[in-house]
Protein backbone atom coordinates (compact mmCIF):
# COMPACT_ATOMS: atom_id res chain seq x y z
CA UNK A 1 0.00 0.00 0.00
CA UNK A 2 2.78 2.35 1.01
CA UNK A 3 4.60 1.72 -2.24
CA UNK A 4 1.47 2.54 -4.20
CA UNK A 5 1.06 5.81 -2.40
CA UNK A 6 4.60 6.75 -3.29
CA UNK A 7 4.23 5.92 -6.91
CA UNK A 8 2.30 8.91 -8.28
CA UNK A 9 4.65 11.35 -6.58
CA UNK A 10 7.75 9.68 -7.95
CA UNK A 11 6.20 9.38 -11.34
CA UNK A 12 5.31 13.05 -11.34
CA UNK A 13 8.84 13.92 -10.27
CA UNK A 14 10.48 11.93 -13.03
CA UNK A 15 7.96 13.25 -15.56
CA UNK A 16 8.79 16.77 -14.52
CA UNK A 17 12.51 16.09 -14.81
CA UNK A 18 11.98 14.52 -18.24
CA UNK A 19 9.96 17.48 -19.39
CA UNK A 20 12.55 19.92 -18.06
CA UNK A 21 15.39 18.16 -19.83
CA UNK A 22 13.37 18.01 -23.05
CA UNK A 23 12.69 21.72 -22.82
CA UNK A 24 16.39 22.32 -22.23
CA UNK A 25 17.17 20.15 -25.24
CA UNK A 26 14.87 22.03 -27.61
CA UNK A 27 16.25 25.31 -26.32
CA UNK A 28 19.83 24.28 -27.04
CA UNK A 29 18.76 22.91 -30.42
CA UNK A 30 17.11 26.18 -31.37
CA UNK A 31 20.14 28.24 -30.35
CA UNK A 32 22.28 25.97 -32.50
CA UNK A 33 19.80 26.30 -35.37
CA UNK A 34 19.83 30.07 -35.09
CA UNK A 35 23.64 30.13 -35.21
CA UNK A 36 23.67 27.76 -38.20
CA UNK A 37 21.18 29.96 -40.10
CA UNK A 38 23.32 33.01 -39.31
CA UNK A 39 26.48 31.28 -40.53
CA UNK A 40 24.73 30.00 -43.66
CA UNK A 41 23.40 33.45 -44.59
CA UNK A 42 26.76 35.14 -44.14
CA UNK A 43 28.60 32.35 -46.04
CA UNK A 44 26.12 32.34 -48.91
CA UNK A 45 27.07 35.86 -49.95
CA UNK A 46 23.51 37.22 -50.07
CA UNK A 47 24.68 39.92 -47.67
CA UNK A 48 28.11 41.49 -47.41
CA UNK A 49 30.44 40.66 -44.54
CA UNK A 50 29.87 44.22 -43.33
CA UNK A 51 26.12 43.73 -43.04
CA UNK A 52 26.39 40.36 -41.33
CA UNK A 53 29.86 39.11 -40.39
CA UNK A 54 30.06 35.33 -40.06
CA UNK A 55 29.42 33.84 -36.64
CA UNK A 56 32.94 32.44 -36.42
CA UNK A 57 34.45 35.90 -36.97
CA UNK A 58 32.22 37.37 -34.29
CA UNK A 59 33.17 34.51 -31.98
CA UNK A 60 36.85 35.17 -32.68
CA UNK A 61 36.32 38.81 -31.85
CA UNK A 62 34.61 37.93 -28.55
CA UNK A 63 37.50 35.57 -27.77
CA UNK A 64 40.03 38.34 -28.46
CA UNK A 65 38.13 40.70 -26.17
CA UNK A 66 38.04 38.05 -23.47
CA UNK A 67 41.77 37.35 -23.71
CA UNK A 68 42.63 41.04 -23.73
CA UNK A 69 40.40 41.54 -20.70
CA UNK A 70 38.20 44.24 -22.26
CA UNK A 71 35.18 41.96 -22.21
CA UNK A 72 35.35 41.48 -18.44
CA UNK A 73 35.94 45.16 -17.70
CA UNK A 74 33.08 46.25 -19.96
CA UNK A 75 30.68 43.64 -18.63
CA UNK A 76 31.56 44.51 -15.04
CA UNK A 77 31.11 48.25 -15.66
CA UNK A 78 27.73 47.80 -17.37
CA UNK A 79 26.50 45.38 -14.73
CA UNK A 80 27.68 47.69 -11.97
CA UNK A 81 25.71 50.63 -13.39
CA UNK A 82 22.60 48.60 -14.14
CA UNK A 83 22.54 46.74 -10.82
CA UNK A 84 23.34 49.69 -8.54
CA UNK A 85 20.62 51.66 -10.30
CA UNK A 86 18.25 48.72 -10.03
CA UNK A 87 19.01 48.30 -6.32
CA UNK A 88 18.39 51.98 -5.56
CA UNK A 89 15.20 51.94 -7.64
CA UNK A 90 13.97 48.77 -5.88
CA UNK A 91 14.56 49.98 -2.32
CA UNK A 92 13.37 53.51 -3.06
CA UNK A 93 10.40 52.36 -5.12
CA UNK A 94 9.18 49.87 -2.52
CA UNK A 95 9.65 52.41 0.28
CA UNK A 96 7.79 55.15 -1.61
CA UNK A 97 5.06 52.73 -2.66
CA UNK A 98 4.60 51.63 0.97
CA UNK A 99 4.55 55.22 2.17
CA UNK A 100 2.00 56.13 -0.49
CA UNK A 101 -0.33 53.31 0.41
CA UNK A 102 -0.22 54.15 4.13
CA UNK A 103 0.00 57.95 4.32
CA UNK A 104 -2.72 60.06 2.67
CA UNK A 105 -0.54 63.14 2.25
CA UNK A 106 2.28 61.26 0.54
CA UNK A 107 -0.25 59.62 -1.74
CA UNK A 108 -1.86 62.95 -2.61
CA UNK A 109 1.49 64.50 -3.52
CA UNK A 110 3.08 61.67 -5.48
CA UNK A 111 0.07 60.09 -7.19
CA UNK A 112 -0.26 62.66 -10.03
CA UNK A 113 3.53 62.87 -10.43
CA UNK A 114 3.73 59.12 -10.91
CA UNK A 115 0.73 58.81 -13.19
CA UNK A 116 2.22 61.51 -15.41
CA UNK A 117 5.81 60.29 -15.06
CA UNK A 118 5.26 56.56 -15.62
CA UNK A 119 4.29 56.68 -19.31
CA UNK A 120 6.83 59.41 -20.16
CA UNK A 121 9.88 58.39 -22.19
CA UNK A 122 12.36 59.26 -19.44
CA UNK A 123 15.29 58.73 -21.77
CA UNK A 124 14.49 62.15 -23.32
CA UNK A 125 15.74 63.70 -20.07
CA UNK A 126 19.20 62.25 -20.62
CA UNK A 127 20.74 65.48 -22.01
CA UNK A 128 19.37 67.33 -18.96
CA UNK A 129 20.87 64.75 -16.61
CA UNK A 130 24.21 65.04 -18.44
CA UNK A 131 24.02 68.81 -18.04
CA UNK A 132 23.58 68.39 -14.29
CA UNK A 133 25.74 65.43 -13.42
CA UNK A 134 28.33 65.09 -16.19
CA UNK A 135 29.03 62.05 -18.31
CA UNK A 136 30.34 59.59 -15.73
CA UNK A 137 28.78 56.90 -13.55
CA UNK A 138 26.57 59.25 -11.51
CA UNK A 139 24.52 60.42 -14.47
CA UNK A 140 24.19 56.92 -15.90
CA UNK A 141 23.08 55.42 -12.61
CA UNK A 142 20.67 58.33 -12.04
CA UNK A 143 19.13 57.67 -15.42
CA UNK A 144 18.73 53.96 -14.60
CA UNK A 145 17.05 54.79 -11.28
CA UNK A 146 14.77 57.36 -12.93
CA UNK A 147 13.57 54.76 -15.43
CA UNK A 148 13.39 51.69 -13.22
CA UNK A 149 11.70 53.21 -10.18
CA UNK A 150 8.25 53.75 -11.73
CA UNK A 151 7.29 50.10 -12.33
CA UNK A 152 8.43 49.25 -8.79
CA UNK A 153 6.32 52.01 -7.21
CA UNK A 154 3.26 51.11 -9.27
CA UNK A 155 3.58 47.39 -8.51
CA UNK A 156 4.07 48.04 -4.77
CA UNK A 157 0.94 50.21 -4.53
CA UNK A 158 -1.19 47.72 -6.45
CA UNK A 159 0.24 44.84 -4.41
CA UNK A 160 -0.46 46.44 -1.03
CA UNK A 161 -3.95 47.54 -2.04
CA UNK A 162 -4.63 43.98 -3.12
CA UNK A 163 -3.78 42.36 0.23
CA UNK A 164 -6.81 40.48 1.54
CA UNK A 165 -8.74 42.36 4.26
CA UNK A 166 -9.35 39.09 6.13
CA UNK A 167 -5.61 38.68 6.73
CA UNK A 168 -5.36 42.17 8.20
CA UNK A 169 -8.45 41.71 10.37
CA UNK A 170 -7.24 38.37 11.73
CA UNK A 171 -3.81 39.75 12.53
CA UNK A 172 -5.30 42.78 14.26
CA UNK A 173 -7.75 40.57 16.13
CA UNK A 174 -4.91 38.48 17.46
CA UNK A 175 -3.27 41.59 18.81
CA UNK A 176 -0.61 42.45 16.27
CA UNK A 177 0.46 46.10 16.21
CA UNK A 178 0.75 48.15 13.03
CA UNK A 179 4.45 47.47 12.66
CA UNK A 180 4.07 43.72 12.95
CA UNK A 181 1.19 43.80 10.50
CA UNK A 182 3.33 45.69 7.99
CA UNK A 183 6.35 43.41 8.19
CA UNK A 184 4.73 40.06 8.86
CA UNK A 185 1.43 40.28 7.00
CA UNK A 186 1.30 43.05 4.40
CA UNK A 187 4.77 42.73 2.89
CA UNK A 188 4.77 38.93 2.55
CA UNK A 189 1.25 38.96 1.11
CA UNK A 190 2.22 41.69 -1.34
CA UNK A 191 5.57 40.18 -2.30
CA UNK A 192 4.53 38.25 -5.44
CA UNK A 193 3.31 41.38 -7.17
CA UNK A 194 6.22 43.46 -5.93
CA UNK A 195 8.51 40.79 -7.41
CA UNK A 196 6.68 41.17 -10.71
CA UNK A 197 7.42 44.89 -10.62
CA UNK A 198 11.09 44.15 -9.97
CA UNK A 199 11.08 41.71 -12.87
CA UNK A 200 9.89 44.52 -15.13
CA UNK A 201 12.42 46.97 -13.71
CA UNK A 202 15.50 44.76 -14.11
CA UNK A 203 15.55 44.42 -17.93
CA UNK A 204 14.64 48.11 -18.12
CA UNK A 205 17.75 48.92 -16.03
CA UNK A 206 19.93 47.05 -18.47
CA UNK A 207 18.32 48.74 -21.51
CA UNK A 208 18.88 52.18 -20.01
CA UNK A 209 22.44 51.38 -18.89
CA UNK A 210 23.31 50.31 -22.44
CA UNK A 211 21.67 53.38 -24.04
CA UNK A 212 23.41 55.83 -21.72
CA UNK A 213 26.74 54.15 -22.45
CA UNK A 214 26.07 54.41 -26.17
CA UNK A 215 25.30 58.10 -25.87
CA UNK A 216 28.23 59.02 -23.66
CA UNK A 217 30.83 56.55 -24.88
CA UNK A 218 33.59 55.26 -22.63
CA UNK A 219 33.72 51.87 -20.95
CA UNK A 220 30.84 49.42 -20.80
CA UNK A 221 29.24 47.04 -23.27
CA UNK A 222 27.18 49.82 -24.89
CA UNK A 223 30.22 52.10 -25.11
CA UNK A 224 32.28 49.35 -26.76
CA UNK A 225 29.50 48.76 -29.29
CA UNK A 226 29.20 52.40 -30.28
CA UNK A 227 32.98 52.71 -30.60
CA UNK A 228 33.01 49.67 -32.90
CA UNK A 229 30.17 51.17 -34.92
CA UNK A 230 32.00 54.51 -35.32
CA UNK A 231 35.00 52.65 -36.77
CA UNK A 232 32.65 50.68 -39.07
CA UNK A 233 33.85 47.54 -37.28
CA UNK A 234 30.83 45.32 -37.77
CA UNK A 235 32.22 42.18 -36.08
CA UNK A 236 32.66 44.39 -33.01
CA UNK A 237 29.03 45.51 -33.19
CA UNK A 238 27.73 41.97 -33.54
CA UNK A 239 30.03 40.78 -30.75
CA UNK A 240 28.41 43.45 -28.60
CA UNK A 241 24.91 42.16 -29.45
CA UNK A 242 25.88 38.61 -28.49
CA UNK A 243 27.53 39.74 -25.25
CA UNK A 244 24.62 41.96 -24.23
CA UNK A 245 22.13 39.22 -25.14
CA UNK A 246 23.95 36.73 -22.89
CA UNK A 247 24.11 39.20 -19.99
CA UNK A 248 20.42 40.03 -20.42
CA UNK A 249 19.42 36.37 -20.56
CA UNK A 250 21.47 35.57 -17.46
CA UNK A 251 19.95 38.45 -15.47
CA UNK A 252 16.37 37.52 -16.39
CA UNK A 253 17.00 33.86 -15.50
CA UNK A 254 18.66 34.69 -12.17
CA UNK A 255 15.74 36.96 -11.32
CA UNK A 256 13.17 34.25 -11.96
CA UNK A 257 15.24 31.77 -9.90
CA UNK A 258 15.31 34.29 -7.04
CA UNK A 259 11.56 34.71 -7.35
CA UNK A 260 11.04 30.97 -7.17
CA UNK A 261 13.34 30.72 -4.16
CA UNK A 262 11.84 33.65 -2.23
CA UNK A 263 8.25 32.68 -2.93
CA UNK A 264 8.70 28.96 -2.31
CA UNK A 265 6.03 29.21 0.43
CA UNK A 266 3.53 30.80 -1.92
CA UNK A 267 0.99 28.66 -3.83
CA UNK A 268 2.31 30.03 -7.14
CA UNK A 269 5.56 28.04 -6.64
CA UNK A 270 3.63 24.80 -7.14
CA UNK A 271 1.87 25.86 -10.31
CA UNK A 272 3.54 25.02 -13.59
CA UNK A 273 5.37 28.11 -14.80
CA UNK A 274 4.21 29.54 -18.10
CA UNK A 275 7.19 31.42 -19.51
Amino acid sequence: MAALEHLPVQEAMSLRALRASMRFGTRVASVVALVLVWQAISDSGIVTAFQLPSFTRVLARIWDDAVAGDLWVNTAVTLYRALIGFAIASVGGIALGMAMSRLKLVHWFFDPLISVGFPMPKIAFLPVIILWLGVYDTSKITMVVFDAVFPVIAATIIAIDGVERELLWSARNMGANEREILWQVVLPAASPQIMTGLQVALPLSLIVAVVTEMLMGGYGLGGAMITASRFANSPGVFAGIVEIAIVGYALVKIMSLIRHRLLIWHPEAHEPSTV
Partner: protein
Amino acid sequence: MNAVLRYVPLLIVAAAWEAASRLGLVSSLALPPLSDVIASWIDLLRDGDLLTNAGPSLYRLAAGLALAILVGALLGLGMAWWKPVNVVLAPVVEIFYPLPKSALIPVTAIWLGFGDGSKILLIFLGCMIPVTIAAFNGARGCDRMLLWSARSMGASRLRVLWDVVLPGAMPELLNGIRTAIALSFILLVSSELIVAQRGFGYLIGSLGANGSYEAMYAVVFTVAFLGFAVDRLYQMLVQRVLIWRL
Protein backbone atom coordinates in the same frame (compact mmCIF):
# COMPACT_ATOMS: atom_id res chain seq x y z
CA MET B 1 -13.06 70.45 -8.73
CA ASN B 2 -11.75 67.12 -7.56
CA ALA B 3 -9.75 66.70 -10.74
CA VAL B 4 -8.18 70.12 -10.22
CA LEU B 5 -7.29 69.31 -6.60
CA ARG B 6 -5.78 66.05 -7.73
CA TYR B 7 -3.26 67.78 -9.96
CA VAL B 8 -2.25 70.49 -7.48
CA PRO B 9 1.04 68.67 -6.72
CA LEU B 10 2.10 69.17 -10.35
CA LEU B 11 1.55 72.91 -9.92
CA ILE B 12 3.58 72.85 -6.69
CA VAL B 13 6.49 71.21 -8.51
CA ALA B 14 6.22 73.73 -11.36
CA ALA B 15 6.18 76.64 -8.91
CA ALA B 16 9.16 75.20 -7.03
CA TRP B 17 11.04 74.92 -10.33
CA GLU B 18 10.29 78.54 -11.28
CA ALA B 19 11.21 79.80 -7.80
CA ALA B 20 14.42 77.77 -7.55
CA SER B 21 15.89 79.24 -10.70
CA ARG B 22 14.46 82.79 -10.27
CA LEU B 23 15.84 83.02 -6.74
CA GLY B 24 19.21 81.69 -7.87
CA LEU B 25 19.10 78.54 -5.73
CA VAL B 26 20.33 76.63 -8.77
CA SER B 27 22.22 77.94 -11.77
CA SER B 28 19.74 79.19 -14.38
CA LEU B 29 22.02 77.56 -16.96
CA ALA B 30 21.38 74.11 -15.49
CA LEU B 31 17.71 74.80 -14.81
CA PRO B 32 16.25 77.69 -16.81
CA PRO B 33 13.04 79.12 -15.29
CA LEU B 34 9.87 77.39 -16.43
CA SER B 35 8.49 80.62 -17.93
CA ASP B 36 11.58 80.95 -20.17
CA VAL B 37 11.18 77.34 -21.26
CA ILE B 38 7.56 77.97 -22.21
CA ALA B 39 8.56 81.12 -24.11
CA SER B 40 11.17 79.25 -26.13
CA TRP B 41 8.66 76.46 -26.77
CA ILE B 42 6.39 79.04 -28.41
CA ASP B 43 9.39 80.33 -30.42
CA LEU B 44 10.23 76.81 -31.60
CA LEU B 45 6.63 76.27 -32.61
CA ARG B 46 6.52 79.57 -34.49
CA ASP B 47 9.72 79.17 -36.52
CA GLY B 48 8.70 75.62 -37.45
CA ASP B 49 11.65 73.74 -35.92
CA LEU B 50 9.37 71.72 -33.71
CA LEU B 51 6.98 70.74 -36.47
CA THR B 52 9.62 69.86 -39.09
CA ASN B 53 11.26 67.54 -36.57
CA ALA B 54 7.99 66.16 -35.23
CA GLY B 55 7.01 64.84 -38.67
CA PRO B 56 9.86 62.33 -39.13
CA SER B 57 9.67 61.19 -35.50
CA LEU B 58 5.94 60.52 -35.62
CA TYR B 59 6.26 58.78 -38.98
CA ARG B 60 8.97 56.44 -37.64
CA LEU B 61 6.97 55.76 -34.52
CA ALA B 62 3.73 55.01 -36.37
CA ALA B 63 5.31 52.84 -39.06
CA GLY B 64 7.44 50.82 -36.61
CA LEU B 65 4.58 50.30 -34.18
CA ALA B 66 2.07 49.35 -36.88
CA LEU B 67 4.43 46.70 -38.25
CA ALA B 68 5.25 45.42 -34.76
CA ILE B 69 1.59 45.11 -33.78
CA LEU B 70 0.55 43.43 -37.02
CA VAL B 71 3.41 40.93 -37.25
CA GLY B 72 3.63 40.41 -33.48
CA ALA B 73 -0.06 39.64 -33.11
CA LEU B 74 -0.04 37.26 -36.10
CA LEU B 75 3.02 35.43 -34.75
CA GLY B 76 1.59 35.16 -31.25
CA LEU B 77 -1.78 33.86 -32.43
CA GLY B 78 -0.06 31.51 -34.84
CA MET B 79 2.16 30.14 -32.07
CA ALA B 80 -0.86 29.53 -29.85
CA TRP B 81 -2.97 27.96 -32.59
CA TRP B 82 -0.55 25.76 -34.58
CA LYS B 83 1.86 23.60 -32.60
CA PRO B 84 4.63 23.45 -35.26
CA VAL B 85 4.81 27.25 -35.39
CA ASN B 86 5.21 27.27 -31.62
CA VAL B 87 7.95 24.63 -31.67
CA VAL B 88 9.96 26.63 -34.19
CA LEU B 89 9.38 30.13 -32.86
CA ALA B 90 9.08 29.79 -29.08
CA PRO B 91 12.83 29.36 -28.46
CA VAL B 92 13.65 32.26 -30.80
CA VAL B 93 11.21 34.49 -28.94
CA GLU B 94 12.66 33.30 -25.66
CA ILE B 95 16.19 34.20 -26.76
CA PHE B 96 15.28 37.68 -27.99
CA TYR B 97 12.89 38.51 -25.15
CA PRO B 98 15.56 39.40 -22.55
CA LEU B 99 17.84 41.13 -25.08
CA PRO B 100 18.12 44.80 -24.11
CA LYS B 101 16.51 46.24 -27.25
CA SER B 102 18.77 49.29 -27.27
CA ALA B 103 21.64 46.98 -28.28
CA LEU B 104 20.00 46.80 -31.71
CA ILE B 105 20.58 50.51 -32.45
CA PRO B 106 24.07 50.12 -34.00
CA VAL B 107 23.01 46.99 -35.89
CA THR B 108 20.00 48.60 -37.54
CA ALA B 109 22.26 51.54 -38.45
CA ILE B 110 24.70 49.11 -40.12
CA TRP B 111 21.87 47.51 -42.06
CA LEU B 112 19.82 50.52 -43.14
CA GLY B 113 21.93 53.62 -42.53
CA PHE B 114 21.03 56.72 -40.54
CA GLY B 115 17.64 57.59 -42.02
CA ASP B 116 14.04 56.56 -41.40
CA GLY B 117 14.53 52.90 -42.34
CA SER B 118 16.87 52.02 -39.48
CA LYS B 119 14.58 53.62 -36.85
CA ILE B 120 11.50 51.90 -38.21
CA LEU B 121 13.30 48.55 -38.21
CA LEU B 122 14.55 49.17 -34.66
CA ILE B 123 11.08 50.01 -33.34
CA PHE B 124 9.57 47.08 -35.24
CA LEU B 125 12.09 44.55 -33.87
CA GLY B 126 12.07 45.95 -30.35
CA CYS B 127 8.29 46.25 -29.96
CA MET B 128 7.30 43.04 -31.71
CA ILE B 129 8.33 40.68 -28.90
CA PRO B 130 6.05 42.09 -26.17
CA VAL B 131 3.10 42.01 -28.60
CA THR B 132 3.90 38.43 -29.63
CA ILE B 133 4.09 37.22 -26.04
CA ALA B 134 0.87 39.02 -25.09
CA ALA B 135 -1.02 37.59 -28.08
CA PHE B 136 0.32 34.11 -27.31
CA ASN B 137 -0.62 34.22 -23.61
CA GLY B 138 -3.99 35.75 -24.38
CA ALA B 139 -4.87 33.15 -26.99
CA ARG B 140 -3.65 30.31 -24.78
CA GLY B 141 -5.69 31.58 -21.85
CA CYS B 142 -8.98 31.81 -23.68
CA ASP B 143 -11.92 29.82 -22.40
CA ARG B 144 -11.86 26.13 -23.49
CA MET B 145 -15.64 25.84 -23.11
CA LEU B 146 -16.18 28.58 -25.67
CA LEU B 147 -13.76 26.86 -28.07
CA TRP B 148 -15.50 23.51 -27.72
CA SER B 149 -18.96 25.01 -28.12
CA ALA B 150 -17.95 26.91 -31.24
CA ARG B 151 -16.34 23.80 -32.72
CA SER B 152 -19.31 21.58 -31.89
CA MET B 153 -21.65 24.07 -33.51
CA GLY B 154 -19.69 23.54 -36.70
CA ALA B 155 -17.42 26.57 -36.92
CA SER B 156 -14.29 26.03 -38.99
CA ARG B 157 -10.87 26.37 -37.36
CA LEU B 158 -10.21 29.75 -38.96
CA ARG B 159 -13.67 30.94 -37.98
CA VAL B 160 -13.01 29.93 -34.35
CA LEU B 161 -9.68 31.73 -34.44
CA TRP B 162 -11.29 34.92 -35.67
CA ASP B 163 -14.54 34.87 -33.68
CA VAL B 164 -13.51 33.22 -30.40
CA VAL B 165 -9.76 33.20 -29.88
CA LEU B 166 -9.00 36.74 -31.06
CA PRO B 167 -11.68 38.44 -28.92
CA GLY B 168 -10.63 36.23 -25.98
CA ALA B 169 -7.02 37.25 -26.41
CA MET B 170 -7.89 40.92 -26.83
CA PRO B 171 -7.45 42.20 -23.24
CA GLU B 172 -3.99 40.70 -22.89
CA LEU B 173 -3.02 41.69 -26.44
CA LEU B 174 -4.06 45.31 -25.84
CA ASN B 175 -2.00 45.31 -22.64
CA GLY B 176 1.03 44.07 -24.56
CA ILE B 177 0.54 46.83 -27.13
CA ARG B 178 0.61 49.37 -24.30
CA THR B 179 4.04 48.05 -23.26
CA ALA B 180 5.11 48.25 -26.89
CA ILE B 181 4.04 51.90 -27.14
CA ALA B 182 6.11 52.85 -24.10
CA LEU B 183 9.09 50.93 -25.47
CA SER B 184 8.73 52.53 -28.91
CA PHE B 185 9.19 56.03 -27.46
CA ILE B 186 12.34 54.93 -25.60
CA LEU B 187 13.80 53.38 -28.76
CA LEU B 188 12.81 56.32 -30.97
CA VAL B 189 14.35 58.98 -28.74
CA SER B 190 17.52 57.06 -27.94
CA SER B 191 18.20 56.11 -31.56
CA GLU B 192 17.58 59.69 -32.67
CA LEU B 193 19.89 61.00 -29.97
CA ILE B 194 22.63 58.63 -31.17
CA VAL B 195 22.31 58.78 -34.97
CA ALA B 196 19.90 61.03 -36.86
CA GLN B 197 19.73 64.16 -38.97
CA ARG B 198 16.09 64.93 -38.14
CA GLY B 199 13.59 64.17 -35.41
CA PHE B 200 12.98 65.07 -31.78
CA GLY B 201 16.10 63.32 -30.51
CA TYR B 202 18.25 65.10 -33.07
CA LEU B 203 16.70 68.46 -32.13
CA ILE B 204 17.36 67.86 -28.41
CA GLY B 205 20.96 66.90 -29.13
CA SER B 206 21.70 69.85 -31.40
CA LEU B 207 20.04 72.42 -29.12
CA GLY B 208 22.02 71.03 -26.19
CA ALA B 209 25.25 71.20 -28.18
CA ASN B 210 24.52 74.87 -29.04
CA GLY B 211 23.96 75.67 -25.39
CA SER B 212 20.37 76.84 -25.91
CA TYR B 213 19.17 75.00 -22.85
CA GLU B 214 15.73 76.65 -22.57
CA ALA B 215 14.89 75.32 -26.02
CA MET B 216 16.36 71.91 -25.16
CA TYR B 217 14.15 71.70 -22.07
CA ALA B 218 11.18 72.72 -24.21
CA VAL B 219 11.73 69.83 -26.64
CA VAL B 220 12.47 67.33 -23.84
CA PHE B 221 9.16 68.14 -22.19
CA THR B 222 7.35 68.06 -25.52
CA VAL B 223 8.52 64.49 -26.08
CA ALA B 224 7.76 63.49 -22.50
CA PHE B 225 4.21 64.85 -22.64
CA LEU B 226 3.68 63.35 -26.07
CA GLY B 227 4.51 59.93 -24.59
CA PHE B 228 2.12 60.61 -21.71
CA ALA B 229 -0.66 61.82 -24.02
CA VAL B 230 -0.37 58.86 -26.39
CA ASP B 231 -0.59 56.46 -23.44
CA ARG B 232 -3.69 58.21 -22.06
CA LEU B 233 -5.40 58.27 -25.47
CA TYR B 234 -4.58 54.60 -25.93
CA GLN B 235 -6.11 53.72 -22.57
CA MET B 236 -9.29 55.59 -23.47
CA LEU B 237 -9.41 53.73 -26.75
CA VAL B 238 -8.91 50.39 -24.99
CA GLN B 239 -11.82 51.12 -22.68
CA ARG B 240 -14.01 51.75 -25.71
CA VAL B 241 -12.85 48.57 -27.43
CA LEU B 242 -13.30 46.35 -24.36
CA ILE B 243 -16.69 47.76 -23.42
CA TRP B 244 -18.39 44.46 -24.36
CA ARG B 245 -16.57 42.73 -21.50
CA LEU B 246 -18.54 44.71 -18.92
